[in-house]
């Protein structure tokens, strides 16, 4: 759905997007890493189960809720990537931690 323009001098950060290792420029957000990774849903609705994906990329729509480093319900567009970050699609409702 999205690709990176050339001429990017930013150092890269390696993250895991849905279990796949991806290199992204420093300063990327988790939601941007998802968009670069490919098409499709980044979460499923807690109600109907239909697929959703980042919509506003500025923190107001809450469609980019995802699981980051094991913590669900994170607004992916507001989380800056760090080395080794695990970014995963979220399925349905957040579960309360044990």
């Amino acid at each position, binding site marked *: 759905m999205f690709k990176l323009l050339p001429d*990017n001098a930013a150092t890269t950060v390696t993250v895991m997007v849905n279990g796949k290792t991806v290199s992204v420029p420093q300063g990327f*957000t988790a939601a941007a890493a998802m968009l*670069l990774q490919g*098409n499709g849903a980044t979460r499923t609705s807690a109600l109907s189960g239909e697929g959703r994906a980042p919509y506003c990329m*500025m923190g107001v*729509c809450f469609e980019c809720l995802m699981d980051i480093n094991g913590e669900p319900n994170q607004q992916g567009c507001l989380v800056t990537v760090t080395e080794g970050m695990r970014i995963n699609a979220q399925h349905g409702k957040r579960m309360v931690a044990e």
Partner: protein
Amino acid sequence: MSPPFDLAIVGAGPAGMAAAMTAAELGLSVAVLDEQPEPGGQIYRGVERLAATRPNHLAWLGPDYAAGLELARSFRKAKVEYLDGAKVWQIEGTSAGRLFYKRHSAAGILTAQKFLIAPGAMERPMPVPGWTLPGVMTCGAAQTVLKAHGLVPQGRFVLAGCGPLLLLLATQLVRAGIKPAAILETEINRWTALPRLPGFLAAPGYLGKGLGLLRELKAASIAVHKGVTHLAIKGDTQAREIEYTCGGATRTEPVDLVLLHQGVVPNGNLAWSMRLAHEWDDAQRSYRPVLDAWGRSSNPAVLVAGDAGGIIGAKGAEAMGRVAAFAAATDAGKISAGDAGERANAARAEFAKHRGARPFLDALYRPQQQWVAPPDADTMVCRCEEVRAGEIRRLVTDQLCPGPNQMKSFVRCGMGPCQGRLCGLTTVEIIAECRGLPVKDIGYYRIRSPIKPITVGDLATLDVPRRDDAVGL
């Protein structure tokens, strides 16, 4: 708990940054909280990092974006306590008060004599059939990833809707070598805008910029379908096709990505949650807080500046940020009211220049009924709680549901994670249409804190003294 500040500002966009610098120069102790990792707001999103890592992108993003670099750099040098990545979830108080925020997975409280809220604008929700599908985003979202990350659409994409931002994004992408398959421009209001043209012509640079964008798109041979009256996005698990009607004919085109836009409106949840008095702005077809000429709200401890107080654009927002800072300095006893009046003159004049262009733009791009109150019963209105337009209409007509807050009780409309941000205006427009009343008589959601999601664990990290009258359980 941190020591009290004279002024706490929410938002590090043009209004917030300008207000912070001006207030600090006038001797106020200032804190600025912003949920993004870098200053600039959405308009100057990521500008410092872009200048450092992708400087050649500045050329085609244009001088209006590049102007943010100087502002952000000056802001960094100002004597201001800047808390980046801080999500403000509540502000309380009418003479001084407390601000609650979450930052780096810990919650904090900040006390201040005065608050200036400058949370900016957000794109008006544009509910059309299929707008919840992956592969549908806003034009603003595409512009954000372009500025902040150097990401551009891949595959066949269209821009649908209307407004200056849509044209600007299309032009920026074309300059970057990325051509949209088409622009599907929804109907604009040339004839009602025409009488307001003189103000627009008098505002510096606006006409030239507008015509320049149209010229560039024409030169790039971008297909622009004008006067679109119907849109529907189709697909199974992803947007695959867009259906549109213009000139009486309905066509379908394959798409990989649809970018919607129907103008911008104040990002209002913080102002609403503080119970600031609001008024309906019919020209901008949205609510805005009631403000005096200094940005003072109905709450004596709260000022509002920038697009959050009514859409004005970056330069006007910056000017209004300065004006509000003079008001805060007056209230803090740093300068006299007369002195403030004198010193605010230049900023006021700057604001007035940009304000002059608005009536024309507001009229030209004022959204038509079908984009604010979707006629199709299946169109999703509340994306979080999955409430559709037909359901809202049925509840108003058959169940006599009178307003947006009752709609919450009926079907949880507006009660999901986004807390009504993406359905509030649509819901009140539909109710108004069904009841045959103006929107101002319908009101708005009662927005309550926390306006950003926090966990009980977050609350437990707050440094608050135990109350003597606390009841043991």
